[in-house]
């Protein structure tokens, strides 16, 4: 069965807090995982005595175990992929964050016109 590196939601109402877990893909979100390898606090926080408005998010991670599980074929979810790519464990999945545009067509190709078609 597929093994996933994913988040398990803990915390309270309006105060989410996640365990980073290694679990079988088809088990329930908060069922007992194979292993808890970290935590992710998605609520941005300011440093004490810092009123610059810059916020940070706290993540605890056992990188050694994360690398091991990736090595034996565990699949991170998109969110976990994003976090793991920040510490260099995964290749970034979405490199280009800009909206995609179609490449320019060569000048000699005529655009198909709706009126010319039968």
């Amino acid at each position, binding site marked *: 069965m597929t093994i996933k590196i994913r988040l398990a939601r803990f915390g309270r109402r309006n105060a989410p807090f996640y365990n980073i877990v290694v679990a079988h893909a088809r088990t329930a979100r908060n069922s*007992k995982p194979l292993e*808890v*390898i*970290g935590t992710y606090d998605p609520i*941005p926080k300011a440093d004490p005595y810092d009123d610059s408005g810059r916020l940070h998010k706290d993540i*605890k991670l056992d990188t050694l175990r994360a690398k091991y599980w990736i090595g034996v074929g565990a699949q991170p979810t998109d969110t976990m992929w994003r976090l793991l790519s920040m510490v260099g464990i995964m290749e970034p999945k979405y490199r280009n964050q800009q909206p995609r545009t179609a490449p320019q067509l060569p000048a000699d190709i005529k655009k198909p016109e709706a009126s010319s078609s039968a």
Partner: protein
Amino acid sequence: MPPRIPTKSSASSASALWTRTIGANYRQPKPEGGPNYLQAFGAGPNKPFPLNPQFRSERVLDEQARELIWEKVMRRGETLKAVSAELGVDLTRVAAVVRLKEVEKDWISKGKKLATPYSKAVLGMLPTKSFRPGVQNQPLEPINELHIHTATQKQLFWPTAESRQFTREDAAKAFHAKMLSADKRVPHPELIQMEKDLLKGMSPDEARARFIKAAEQSERKAAEKQQRKAMAEEQATKKVNTPRFEFRFKEVDSELVGKDGRAPNVVGWKYGMPHYDRKKGLVKIPTSVP
């Protein structure tokens, strides 16, 4: 039948009588200021509740005393321990006064409005303590009191030979193998050393100078320890900047879970165990200053 006219209860009329006679003295504050507590039922001074003579209204530091403490610590660079020992103010209170004074001065510099009339009114109703700089002052409170350690709350039957010396060190060891003696757990262990020096015949000035030096050393040591801790934390954290937030990755060891996976400081929320964050009787507000 005529409607019944409600009559005042005896308690109500007694209260009205008291307000007219004895209570009239308490209607206005005392012209000279200071507390104006009820003096009935033989309650002494500084006992605001006549039916609860056990409650004593303790003196609070007045504006001048707080300014003096701030001045000594922040302007003259004296250590918290030395100021605490000199003025007889608890070490944590000295630290709190300095912090609050800093906030006050910050507000003043920013042009924020202070609640001065309120502060004046409250201080006017309480017994206050002020210090005269440069002279020996009466202490505000005992400063070298020991916090009760839970390990010392059990009764011990610990037979020792009469021929053997049984010191405070031994008493601490009897309670717990890692426990420090009472002499080391007090807020000012340096004061004990100073008294020992005085007993040895050292001059008071020299003993005092040695105390101040020891206090400086202990404060420097504490600051260095704090700095090392912050440095270690900084090194264990990887910071990744994104346009919106900074992500701080802290390295942990997920294998310290214990035999049953329920070790007390295991990473993450635990499975099959209640989370005590809302338990009755637990402190839920921050207990330390970051």
